[in-house]
């Protein structure tokens, strides 16, 4: 029971966050200047509008309608997209777009970490020297450029002038693995550069601190090689912050994909959100945002769990 309690508490917090954010959103929907049903069925008869109102639970009070919506939501019934005449379900859009965005976020994190880990350790090792300063300054500049600006730069330089990578489209892994990765290079690098910069700095700070720690000297005094010391003694404790940052960034990446997917015409979840916004699909938006909130919470919890794995000192308090 003791071990289950903290997990239950965690789940409870999770639930509370999701419920609060989506409830807030549904309240907002009711405050719209135009009645939602009027917007969807502009030319409908009163009976049709009443029917739609019932379907959308807008004939009840705020709490009941929210509760009904929530019940549907967890069953996967997220309503319809009314722009195309109510022929498509929101769920179908979610299932075909969310995996794409998740893949993009995953690749972005990998790229960012692949860049950041060696650079972070290297600049920590050479802290204060010229190579450190050059790299750190370059990264700082890169991180202050917004990701869509980097995207445009890359499109023009790498896509148009050099023609190394395609600048549009998404190709599924099953369809053509080589093209799949080739098409995702520019989008993921655009998103990953900023991340890499911040990860490098985090890691650099932690590694510098770790290098000063006595246990590094102790490990050295055992006669171990530098690389072994770096990897097993320095990197692991230093990576705790990095891991936290990476997991928390997953939430922020959801927003990043919104812009990038539109630039690269990738039919991912961010694209769906942007499109729903533009076409006033409020019913769909409610579910999209709920999913995003869910994503944030899940990533946060995962971050906590991961840290528990890596740093046993924090396990006691779980």
């Amino acid at each position, binding site marked *: 029971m003791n071990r289950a309690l903290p997990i239950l508490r965690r789940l409870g917090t999770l639930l509370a966050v999701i419920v609060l954010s989506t409830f807030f959103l549904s309240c907002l929907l009711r405050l719209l200047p*135009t009645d939602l049903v009027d*917007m*969807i*069925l*502009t*030319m409908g008869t009163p009976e049709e509008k009443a029917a739609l109102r019932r379907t959308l639970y807008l004939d009840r009070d705020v709490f009941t309608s929210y509760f009904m919506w929530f019940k549907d939501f967890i069953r996967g019934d997220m309503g319809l997209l*009314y*722009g*195309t*005449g*109510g*022929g*498509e379900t929101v769920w179908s859009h979610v299932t075909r777009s969310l995996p794409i965005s998740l893949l993009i976020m995953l690749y972005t994190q990998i790229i960012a970490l692949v860049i950041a880990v060696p650079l972070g350790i290297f600049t920590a090792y050479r802290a204060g020297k010229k190579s450190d300063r050059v790299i750190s300054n370059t990264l700082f500049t890169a991180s202050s450029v917004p990701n869509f600006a980097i995207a*445009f730069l890359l*499109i*023009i330089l790498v*896509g*148009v002038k050099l*023609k190394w*990578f*395609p*600048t*549009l*489209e998404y190709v599924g892994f099953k369809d053509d693995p080589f093209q799949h990765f080739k098409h995702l290079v520019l989008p993921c690098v655009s998103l990953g550069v900023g991340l890499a910069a911040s990860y490098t700095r985090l890691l650099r700070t932690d590694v510098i601190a770790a290098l000063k720690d006595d246990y590094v000297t102790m490990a050295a005094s055992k006669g171990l090689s530098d690389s072994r010391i770096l990897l097993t003694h320095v990197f692991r404790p230093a990576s705790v912050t990095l891991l936290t940052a990476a997991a928390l960034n997953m939430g922020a990446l959801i927003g990043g994909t919104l812009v990038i997917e*539109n*630039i*690269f*015409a990738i*039919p991912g979840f961010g*694209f769906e959100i942007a*499109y729903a916004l533009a*076409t*006033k699909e409020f019913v769909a938006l409610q579910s999209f945002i709920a999913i995003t909130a869910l994503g944030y919470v899940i990533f946060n919890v995962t971050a906590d769990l991961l840290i528990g794995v890596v740093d046993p000192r924090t396990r006691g308090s779980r």
Partner: protein
Amino acid sequence: MFQRSTNRSRVMKRVGAGIALALLASTVPLAANAANTTSSAADKPVIGGKITVGVFDTFPGFCMKQILANSALGGARSITESLFERTSNGKVVGFLLKGASSSADFKTWNLEIRKKADGTPIQFHDGVAWNADALLANFNAIRGLTYVANISKDTEKNFLGSTAVAVGNIVSTTKVDDYNVKVTLNSPQADLRELMYASGRFFMRSPGQFADSKTCASTLIGTGPFKQKSVKETQLVVEKNKNYWRKDAAGNKLPYLDQITFKYVSESSARVNGLKSGSLDAAQFSSAAETTQMKDLSSSKAVNYFKTGAEFFPSLWFNTSIAPFNNINARKAVSFAINRDLWAKTRGNGINSAATSIVGKTNVMYSTKNFPTFNLAKAKEHAALYKSETGKDLEFVFPSSNDSATRANSKAFVSQMKTAGIKASYNEETTSDIVNKGFFEAGVGLKYQAAFLLTLEGIDAAFNYIFLSPNMFEAGSTNPMAGLARLGKIDTLLNITKHTDAQLNTLLQAARASGKAADYKLVTERIQEQAYIANITYQSYAMATTKKIFGVGQTKLAAGGSAPAVFNWGTNWTSVWKK
């Protein structure tokens, strides 16, 4: 039935596009199909290949209810074909129809259906024959009768689209024999052919599509060179129709390409970069908001560039039923205050040309007489007259759709009005709201005093007529849809300016009856004299392709002549091949 969002109806999108597009002008001389392309040499066409075309509209569906916006229509037109086509010389010729002949009074028409060279019928992709029965099925769907027939069992109401209003003049269609159909009209209409060209929107679907509204919307079956392979809102994929009924001059089967993917890429720069990087083989652009990109591409050595003539006329429509524009001086004041040449220089990037009439130079209705060209003195004079007549200063509010390009244009318009002492201001609304609640909300009242809409287009007057005529279903019309219209069940998007001008009405009827340019010009002159509409610029569309694409503009039409390289809806891909 209109949907609430702009992409959903032909008129909507013209309207929506119009609001975004309407405020551009430039002084580029009109040149139909100007292009800086490399001429396709006598290269032998490569059979096969796949291309991707970038478009700026989505694919909401294929039934009558979901009417496709311009660049999405291009995708549909690779699958379906229309009754008439337009040659690059501007003539309207029969395509799926061999011809149309009429009685002397233009009230009765005979449509003759084209067969294949060997006398067998052309076939739809599902094997159904293209014959009189198919034509009738299409007419019934377009006119809304299928809706009426299905109304009890199919509550989706997917059959009713706004093209119903365009054919309101048709009273009955009857089969004469397997390849001939008789059409009777309520009022004489000389340009029925042009009406059935309708900027390429009257494409023929297989009768099998009309059985069910859901499949009608999701599956497009036509007679065209390509078949629908897959569709979602942001992408249409079509594949070669191996049984296409036409061959090229050398006798080879058409089309050459194996597959085309029409991809929705909303960002203009993404389309440009996609072209240059090779991710796209072709991309379409509209000079509404993409003049910068068009200018860049027109001088780029990396692409082939094709442009339509300046045949699209976004206009400022005045609501003449309420103040201030129920007063002619108010309308004239605004019209004279628009500095079109300045607009062309500052906002048109050299692509859009200043308007000299409510329609373009190549339109049959074109006339510069009575058109209020820029004249600040006269603008102020009319504003003063307005004030003396009503005691009020001239001010009005117009809606502006909430994207940055339109906003910039709205601001520019407001400042031009200010120079003439007219106070104009705008409210930002979504394009769909503007259209839905502006002029067309039945029973609620007319909200806007004026609005920018893109409804007039092309070189003929047939489709423009419906926006100028006060009645779609004339009194006594026996069109079954008329009854529904009277019940307010369908929108009759007509008479945007809500005028009650009997003289204009007479002129309209006469012009339609005779079809003569001279009569149409009288219509224009009356409209311009009354200043019901104010234009700023003309617009065009462009298609750019990579250097590996050949054959654009070389599709020969069944009746002779070539199709233009690019229309408002894109390009005819029949004779296009990729190296």
